[in-house]
């Protein structure tokens, strides 16, 4: 076919058939770094390039395959893909049609875990400020776990030994498999709705990351964070961490440890009760001692030493008051004497005797004092009083001075 004339379509179609016919290219594993990643929101297909230091290749992952991976691919992420190589005839570009993608280096679950952890942490679900304190003496301890596992037995044993006062309320759930997350979420919500416990233990025994996966599911993590009842998370062994642990108010390394965190120890409580009783007794003894000392002080004081001391004290007070009263009295008398003197002076100045001394006389008739000429008639007898005595006389005539000045005679 050295000299055939081909259309572009025929050429691309031919090349495609060559690629599709190559057995090796039907299933290849390629590792590289993701770039130009596009998650086509409408179709759900992923479009990306894979590259290494020297080359780049286009790739596509259709929705059916893309929806199966748990992590979200990102630019710069190193991945291992499995797929077939073929040609996209319209652009003449060959590309990898990806069936599966794994993060290179870490497992995909691990990556999904990290990504979800970061997203939920950004939302503040793991904030220390959200953590509620676990009650010291819980009356009802709720447990969300498998009814058949060792977890329940461990918790039960620990509580029987440490704090049998509590009531253990179990909400049995599946702890792995596709239904687990939904059941665990529902159980946490039910405890909250009914306020059926003072503290919750949510957990399961150890297992692989896949086994523990329900405790990483977003609905479970959110239910734990939203729980008004404090939650103690006890998933797997000490080395296993789940997102549930981060959202919980306390994380216990094992189910037994969770029970220990949930309840105080009977033996320790007994000791603490003894201590309290001792403290009370000591405090009361101190109180009695203090009162005895005070009594002693009072007894030895002066008033207790001499019974008359109080009387003396009161007599002194009485004397003092009497003195005050006396001086107040003297003061009042003096002030009134002064007032009297002033009034007497005024009275003296107004005395008619003083007027007579200056040469005036007081006339009086049968009707009393005669202070006006008009009061006296010719022939009346008047009595004139002087300073040194009086005379009797008769009116011979009178002259009245009217206001306009002209005297006239009657």
């Amino acid at each position: 076919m050295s000299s055939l004339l081909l259309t572009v379509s025929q050429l691309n179609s031919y090349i495609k058939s060559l690629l599709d016919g190559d057995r090796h290219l039907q299933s290849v594993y390629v590792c590289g770094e993701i770039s130009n990643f596009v998650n086509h929101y409408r179709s759900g297909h992923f479009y990306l390039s894979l590259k290494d230091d020297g080359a780049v290749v286009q790739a596509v992952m259709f929705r059916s395959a893309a929806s199966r991976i748990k992590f979200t691919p990102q630019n710069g992420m190193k991945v291992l893909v499995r797929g077939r190589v073929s040609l996209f005839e319209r652009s003449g570009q060959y590309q990898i049609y990806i069936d599966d993608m794994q993060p290179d280096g870490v497992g995909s679950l691990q990556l999904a875990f990290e990504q979800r952890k970061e997203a939920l942490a950004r939302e503040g679900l793991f904030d220390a400020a959200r953590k509620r304190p676990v009650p010291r003496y819980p009356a009802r301890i709720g447990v969300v776990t498998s009814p058949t596992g060792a977890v329940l037995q461990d918790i039960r044993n620990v509580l029987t030994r440490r704090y049998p006062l509590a009531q253990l309320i179990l909400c049995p759930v599946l702890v792995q498999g596709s239904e687990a997350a939904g059941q665990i979420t529902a159980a946490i919500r039910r405890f909250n709705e009914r306020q059926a416990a003072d503290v919750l233990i949510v957990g399961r025994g150890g297992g692989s990351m896949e086994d523990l996966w329900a405790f990483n599911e977003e609905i479970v993590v959110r239910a734990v964070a939203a729980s008004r009842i404090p939650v103690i998370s006890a998933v797997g062994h000490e080395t296993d961490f789940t997102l549930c642990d981060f959202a919980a108010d306390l994380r216990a390394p094992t189910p037994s440890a969770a029970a220990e965190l949930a309840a105080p120890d009977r033996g320790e409580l007994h000791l603490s009760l003894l201590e309290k009783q001792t403290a009370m007794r000591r405090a009361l003894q101190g109180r009695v001692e203090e009162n005895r000392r005070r009594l002693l002080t009072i007894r030895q004081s002066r008033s207790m030493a001499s019974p008359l001391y109080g009387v003396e004290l009161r007599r002194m007070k009485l004397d003092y008051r009497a003195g005050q009263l006396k001086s107040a009295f003297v003061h009042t008398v003096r002030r009134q004497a002064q007032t009297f003197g002033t009034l007497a002076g005024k009275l003296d100045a107004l005395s008619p005797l003083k007027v007579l001394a200056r040469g005036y006389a007081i006339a009086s008739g049968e009707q009393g004092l005669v202070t006006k000429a008009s009061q006296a008639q010719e022939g009346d007898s008047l009595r004139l009083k002087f300073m040194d005595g009086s005379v009797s006389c008769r009116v011979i005539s009178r002259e009245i001075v009217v206001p306009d000045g002209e005297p006239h005679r009657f």
Partner: protein
Amino acid sequence: MAKMTFEAAMKRLDEIVALLEQGEAPLEKSLKLFEEGTKLAQFCDETLKNAQLRIEELSEEPGEPDTEGTEA
């Protein structure tokens, strides 16, 4: 005091110990507190001694939890 919860008793007991240790209450009041505290401590100790773990299952339906549980 018969109906008192363990938690409430412990809380009151702590209060009493604190009050007595402050030593501000008059002697007569202190004596009353001491008496109350001693009773509470005895009640708590008795409760601890006699307690038996009860296990119940949270029922599906809203309402009281089932009481089918057994004692440990």
